[in-house]
């Protein structure tokens, strides 16, 4: 296996002075942490060739010039009648190569290629409308926690790294994307029903102004979620950081506190708060039974 080659390492990627070097170094240092959550999952690149101040684009198809050790997996998309060769974030070389491609954010599918049509993660995606603060996100997260508990489900919260919060639910690869989406939609409706002032499942932005959007449609096939420990292309280089429920329920979370400078230190003291994700299994049946 040839070593990845890096280029333009002094290029400024975050205006506060972080360069492409820092981007690659982060993914190299954090590889052991992040790879378990990327392995065998189709990966969507969000590339910023000129750093966070420049244009970006999503890229699904693995470029032809990729080194041979970048593993890929073909996925057929019926809607576009196309097969896309997705990159799999299977090793540290791929991760740092992606960083060298200006890929700041790592977005991955909720299923693995072994059971591509059966997701092994369900997600509660809390996405505040513009202007809605993180305090409201935490308030809805507390309701989500309660609702999950009522159905005997165990979820793992993390900051999105931007303004939102994600709860990942480990699942056995038994239900289809449609079933998981329906189950997560049912869960979201319970929450919206008790707190319609602050929670919404309206897809139209104008209709959920001032509210937290429970984007259960993120569970659909072909969607990807920002991976735990992925950097975000935002000022301060924040990271999508796993949280404890205690932190969430105490409303003691400031997403900007978790960033390229602080994340590894936090992991040293708290450990990998997502480690339990791989040891837990959930049963969606009690929730699916209530889907109309």
């Amino acid at each position, binding site marked *: 296996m040839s070593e990845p080659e890096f280029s333009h390492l002094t290029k400024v990627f975050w205006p506060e002075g972080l360069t492409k070097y820092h981007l690659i170094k982060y993914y190299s240092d954090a590889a052991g942490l992040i790879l378990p959550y990327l392995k065998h999952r189709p990966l969507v690149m969000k590339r910023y060739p000129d750093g966070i101040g420049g244009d970006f684009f999503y890229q699904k198809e693995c470029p032809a010039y990729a080194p041979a050790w970048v593993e890929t997996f073909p996925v057929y998309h019926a809607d576009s009648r196309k097969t896309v060769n997705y990159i799999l974030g299977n090793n540290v070389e791929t991760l740092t190569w992606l960083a060298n491609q200006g890929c700041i954010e790592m977005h991955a599918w909720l299923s693995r290629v072994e059971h591509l049509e059966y997701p092994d993660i369900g997600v509660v995606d809390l996405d505040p409308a513009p202007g809605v603060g993180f305090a409201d996100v935490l308030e809805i997260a507390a309701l989500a926690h309660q*609702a999950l508990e*009522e159905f005997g489900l165990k979820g793992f919260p993390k900051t999105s790294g931007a303004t939102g919060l994600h709860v990942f639910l480990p699942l056995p690869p038994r239900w289809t994307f449609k079933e998981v989406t329906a189950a997560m939609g049912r869960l979201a409706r319970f929450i919206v029903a008790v707190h319609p002032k602050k929670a919404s499942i309206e897809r139209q932005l104008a209709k959920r102004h001032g509210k937290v959007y429970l984007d259960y449609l993120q569970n659909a096939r072909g969607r990807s979620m920002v991976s735990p420990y992925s950097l975000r292309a935002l000022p301060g280089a924040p990271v999508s950081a796993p949280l404890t429920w205690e932190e969430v329920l105490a409303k003691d979370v400031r997403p900007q506190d978790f960033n390229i400078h602080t994340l590894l230190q936090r992991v040293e003291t708290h450990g990998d708060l997502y480690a339990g994700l791989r040891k837990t299994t959930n049963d969606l049946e009690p929730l699916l039974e209530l889907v109309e």
Partner: protein
Amino acid sequence: MRPFWKGAISFGLVNVPVKLYAATEEHDIRFTYLHARCKTPVQYHKYCPICATDVTQEEIVRGYEYEKGKYVVLQEEDLEAISPEASRSIDIIDFVDLKEIDPIYFVKAYYLAPAEMGQKAYVLLKQAMEETGRIAVARVSLRAKQSLAALRPSGKVLVMNTMLYPDEVRSAAELPELAAEVKLHQNEVEMAVRLIESLAAAFDPSKYTNEYRAALLELIEAKIAGQEVEVPAKPEPGKVVDLMEALKKSIELAKKEKGAVEAGEGEKEPPRRKTS
């Protein structure tokens, strides 16, 4: 005090260089709007509901709504083309009797002070106005807005009042309450006149103080002294607990209803609605 404008009064061939000072100031006590729950000052965002994004100043243009929902956009250049020339002059049109101007026309007062080399002309103009008992009606452009103004001597200074244009003053004839004919008895009028005369006094502005403002300041002082001070705080969990209960109940109810329907499916007859 600092002058905020320099120019000249002009009438006929005479030019009187002057500086302009604001003659009045507001003493309103201003409040900050806080979010009631956490006592954080609220922010105002310019928001576009279609693009679902906050809008910066550079992204804003002026539109005029000529009919409901339809706008013409006026660019900065369009407005500049018709804006009054920054003539820097107070052009006197007429000299009139002060009593002829209804105070309803007066908007804001400014002091005019003589500018460099203008001392003599200034005093001359002021004294001539005093002797004739006439005040000047003038046209002036302040801050890109043209307005009417009245100039009058007041002690050692010339005061300029900006004035409304006649079409900005509503007609009292539009008040329906004044349409009725009222007959007054001569005795009633005499009594009212005597009452007024008994309350007649010289105008002494220092007599009148803003009692509301004083009371408000006192209240604020007391609140600070009594530590009844609000600082941004973390939201209380009280309401959330109630929501938790509501959530639990609604999920339990949904499970029960489901259970009831399934129990019904086992029977041969269609499930009956529970009446208990």
